[in-house]
């Protein structure tokens, strides 16, 4: 029996190794590319840990002419799109949950499955007509297409699970609906707010398709800036990999520390979808 248990343990260990290694190896290789000089990046057989570390790849990226502008653009777009989405989306999620207006949630669901590109044509024309192109506003507004449905969707699910009895008691005591929301419902919903916030930040930060159409030279966000680097210096892999790692590092860090919230948020929509 114990031999069989041992075999089971070894089998499990092997299975875990097989499943996790593609992710681990990929990110290690990404890190390796980012700290190598061109000689090592072009070496065959490939070098994993170089003799000399090229930390200057990172310095080069950060010092390159517009990197700080792009970083600031990303912060502004993601920050504004997330905060605006929380501002309108959290009350909406509450209202929809309390009215049990489940039909309206279908709109959110359809918004979730609509390809992002199909929003771009009309909104591109609208922004052009309003003369907003060249500023960050078009991107902030269009990122709401991503963040608002996420926030509403998660908050509907969350408010449905919070107890309604306390709210009824407060209403009978003469509180207004707004006071009940502000002082009773909202404090209980903090974990749900965290989930909605984190997912909205990640999906806005990662967004690429809106930026390639709407961003000009000065208004690029980091993913678009990195994409543009590919076409220009195809051959300097070190700085490119360093830039890629810088862009995605905040998200990886968030995934590591907010894993529970992310998992809860991503599975909420799926499992409750029936």
């Amino acid at each position, binding site marked *: 029996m114990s031999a069989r248990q041992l075999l089971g343990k070894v089998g*499990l260990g092997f299975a*875990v190794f097989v*499943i*996790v290694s593609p*992710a681990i190896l990929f990110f290690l*290789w*990404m890190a390796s*590319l980012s700290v190598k000089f061109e000689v090592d990046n*072009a070496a*065959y*057989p490939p070098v994993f840990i170089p003799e000399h570390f090229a930390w200057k790849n990172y310095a080069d990226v950060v010092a390159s002419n517009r990197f700080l502008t792009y970083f600031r653009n990303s912060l502004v777009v993601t920050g504004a799109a997330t905060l605006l989405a929380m501002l*309108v989306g959290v*009350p*909406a999620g509450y*209202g929809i949950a*309390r*009215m049990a207006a*489940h039909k*309206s949630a279908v709109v959110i669901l359809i918004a979730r*499955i*609509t*390809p*992002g*590109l*199909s*929003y771009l*044509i*009309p*909104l591109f024309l609208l922004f052009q007509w309003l003369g907003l192109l060249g500023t960050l506003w078009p991107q902030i*507004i*269009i990122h*709401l*297409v991503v963040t*608002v449905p996420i926030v509403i969707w998660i908050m509907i699910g969350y408010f*449905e699970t919070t107890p309604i009895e306390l*709210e*009824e008691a407060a*209403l*009978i005591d003469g509180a207004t*609906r707004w006071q009940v929301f502000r002082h009773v419902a909202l404090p209980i919903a903090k974990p749900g707010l965290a989930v909605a916030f984190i997912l909205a930040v990640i999906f806005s930060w*990662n967004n*690429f398709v809106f930026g*390639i159409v709407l961003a000009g030279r000065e208004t690029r966000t980091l993913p*678009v800036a*990195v*994409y543009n680097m*590919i076409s220009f210096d195809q051959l300097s*892999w070190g700085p*490119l*990999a360093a830039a*890629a790692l810088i862009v*995605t590092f905040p*998200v*990886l860090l*968030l995934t590591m520390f907010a*894993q529970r919230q992310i*998992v809860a948020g991503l*599975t909420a929509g*799926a499992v409750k979808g*029936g």
Partner: protein
Amino acid sequence: MSTLTEATSATASAEAAPGREWRPPSYWPFVIPALVVVLAIIVFPWLFTIWMSFNEWKVGSPTTFVGLANYVRLPNDPRFVEAVGHTVVYTALSVLLPVILGTFAAVVFHARFPFRGILRAIFIMPMMATPVAIALVWTMMFHPQLGVLNYLLSLVGIGPQLWVFHPATVIPSLVLVETWQWTPLVMLIVLGGIAALPTEPYESAQIDGAGIWQMFRYITLPLILPFVFIAAMIRTIDAVKSFDIIFAITQGGPGSASETINVYLYSVAFVYYDLGYGSAIAVIFFALIIVLAAVLLYLRQRTLWTEIGPGA
């Protein structure tokens, strides 16, 4: 489903309880700001796109109403027809592989082992990481001369491949990236299902001397099938409209060998600035996704009924 009915009855009692005069629907003020935003940035673009699809509209030239001409163009556009074919192949592979691997990963992650939390966080990193950053590194790894993938193949005695640089291998190579990226989502959804399973069947199966495979095949798999189906559904919708990875790695190339509907739509609208025709593609693409979602939902309802039976 139970939460839904509970919420409904709870709200109903809340409205009946005060017993005062009829209240206006007072939750509306909470919803109105979001409603305005959703109308402006989600519903308006849908309607505007439909309207534009009936027009000949190129940036810089006047608009003319052309009726259904843009839609008639579609089946006669070889590039569009080809893109539909690529989308079908790409989607089929990008659903099948992550669903199989993700279900396996869910079973593994359900077991207890050291560092499970950290390993799970690492495992879900590919789907959270910035797609463009990921695509950039995969492009380097696919490089025929300097890429690490051909080196890894050489270790097991397989000759160098051209990966995304050859029309015959470009779609499978992109599917490899998509699978690597999205298997974690399938894993999470299925894992949620496994975690909710009752333990009794396993206990009695163990007493009866069933092996691990038998327990998986005859207890776990039938019970988690609805979750596998949901995962497949979400995966299908996401794979059909996959854009970032394809665009950042190949831009639809080489030639147009990996051009899916979404990538072609981008070219028509924002490279050729043929906005009317682009809108028609967007409408058809959108309709296709809605139909797909409806069919999948219908199938899911049916499997649910046959799995659980009408008593549930």
